[in-house]
């Protein structure tokens, strides 16, 4: 069937329009392209705001932030370089976090395994639970002074609650049928603990530990904002006192980066430590 030339060319224009639209749609469907677009737009808008001083002079450019971080890396600030400040924060977080895991998981297990203990401790725990860790700063300074102990205490307060709750729920929510299976197969109480309680509760406990680690990292800034001579929170606070926004934003970027690294590595650790979690979730 022969068609006249004119409609054909019009048709090809339409078709090329359709293919163009198809390409645009393909781009809009591709998540990674969109991510790149988003980040580029964000950086551009940031730079625009910084250069044109939309928020006054308190918005650093990205270049300034990076160069500030570089200079803090090389020259010590309050006798410590940037990496040493990061380490100061990290070590506080680790001490508070480990204490919280030991005490919190133990308390949670105790509450889950003994209903009398649970009934006794629960109301007090519920009373103290809703108080934000930052609200403890004042008391902790009164009790422990402005040294390391008070910072570790605040981190402990922030990290202990998820440990307790998840350890408790992890054990209480075990499917009772699993116990029955072990008993029916002639298992002793020890077998129940090893074959049921540990593997079934571990994912929940680990999830609590995960939450508590990120919450501990979030508390370190609060702890260091008040009185500190080192750490990331100190850098942010110093940036505020010196009116140096590049220091503040640099400190925030490092906090976000470390929080991200912590989350990723804990996720990896979980996959390595309890591979049966996926089976539990899928099954």
């Amino acid at each position, binding site marked *: 069937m022969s068609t006249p030339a004119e409609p054909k060319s019009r048709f090809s224009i339409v078709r090329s329009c359709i293919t163009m639209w198809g390409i645009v749609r393909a781009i809009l469907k591709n998540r990674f392209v969109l991510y790149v677009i988003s980040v580029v737009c964000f950086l551009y808008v940031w730079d625009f705001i910084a250069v044109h001083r939309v928020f006054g002079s308190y918005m650093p450019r990205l270049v300034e932030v990076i160069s500030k971080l570089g200079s803090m890396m090389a020259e010590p600030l309050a006798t410590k370089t940037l990496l040493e400040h990061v380490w100061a924060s990290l070590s506080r977080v680790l001490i508070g976090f480990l204490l919280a895991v030991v005490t919190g998981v133990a308390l949670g297990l105790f509450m889950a395994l003994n209903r009398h203990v649970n009934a006794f401790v629960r109301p007090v725990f519920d009373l103290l639970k809703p108080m934000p860790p930052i609200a403890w*700063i004042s008391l902790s300074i009164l009790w422990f002074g402005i040294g390391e102990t008070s910072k570790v205490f605040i981190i402990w307060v922030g990290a202990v609650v998820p440990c307790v709750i998840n350890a408790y729920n992890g054990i209480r929510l075990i499917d009772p049928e699993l116990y029955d299976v072990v008993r029916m197969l002639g298992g002793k109480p020890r077998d129940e603990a090893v074959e049921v309680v540990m593997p079934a509760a571990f994912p929940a406990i680990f999830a609590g530990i995960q939450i508590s680690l990120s919450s501990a990292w979030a508390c370190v800034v609060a702890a260091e904002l008040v009185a500190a001579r080192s750490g990331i929170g100190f850098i942010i606070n110093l940036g505020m006192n010196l009116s140096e926004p590049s220091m503040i934003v640099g400190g925030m970027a490092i906090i976000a980066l470390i929080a991200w690294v912590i989350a990723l590595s804990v996720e990896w650790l979980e996959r390595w430590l309890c591979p049966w979690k996926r089976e539990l979730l899928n099954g």
Partner: protein
Amino acid sequence: MIVTGSKSHVYRNISVAGLLTFFVLWESIVDFGLVPKMLLAAPSQVVRLFFVKLTDPNPDGALLVVHTMVSLEEVVTGYLLALVVGIPLGLLMGWFTVAEGLARPLFEMIRPIPPPAWIPLAIFWFGIGLEGKVFIIWVSGIVPCVINSYVGVRMTNPTFVQMARTYGASEWQIFRRICIPSALPMVFGGLQIALAASWTALVAAELIAANEGLGFLITMGRRLMMPEMIVLGMLMVGLTGLIVGILVDAAERRLSKGLRR
């Protein structure tokens, strides 16, 4: 597990005993001078201060009711703004690839930054007035809103979506008629989490610059070396948070009537 009537009675008694022990221990530690009065206030002192603060604005400059109302105003403003922005954003991110692709990286950048870290920038950008505090509360309240709405849409039963497609529904129709209703329980769950996050951020927001509010009361207690004022402020934060939480829960129950399966 079913607890029989007499057993639950026993557990309630134990709970009451637990609370009593806690308060008696606390009171006696202070009264017998095991810890200096400068470091810890007895519960009786806290209660006394509570009644004094109801009528006497000294020594921190405002009545307890004023402090509470100021804090409530800040939290409620920040919280509502977080809901208004966060829930639609999360819902859109859950269904439309474009929205997710564009918003996800920004969200992932902002999410890990703890609220206290925003304090300096909030002061520089919005000043030390209400706006700065509301901004800090907003930033910390928006994160759970977005996450829960996003997950809620993502968890939509694919069968419903396929059925709607079969009947020729457009993407927008599927989003509005199927994804949003099925995400609502998750969204309501997010309301509580966001509220808790907002209350936590309130104390951070009032740490730096304030002359009224519960967080300010706590800070003042430290400056004046009055531990009973610190404890009173903490208790009021916990109590008010609890009451607002119950209100939100009641609202949630009314709104989601018939949604629960």
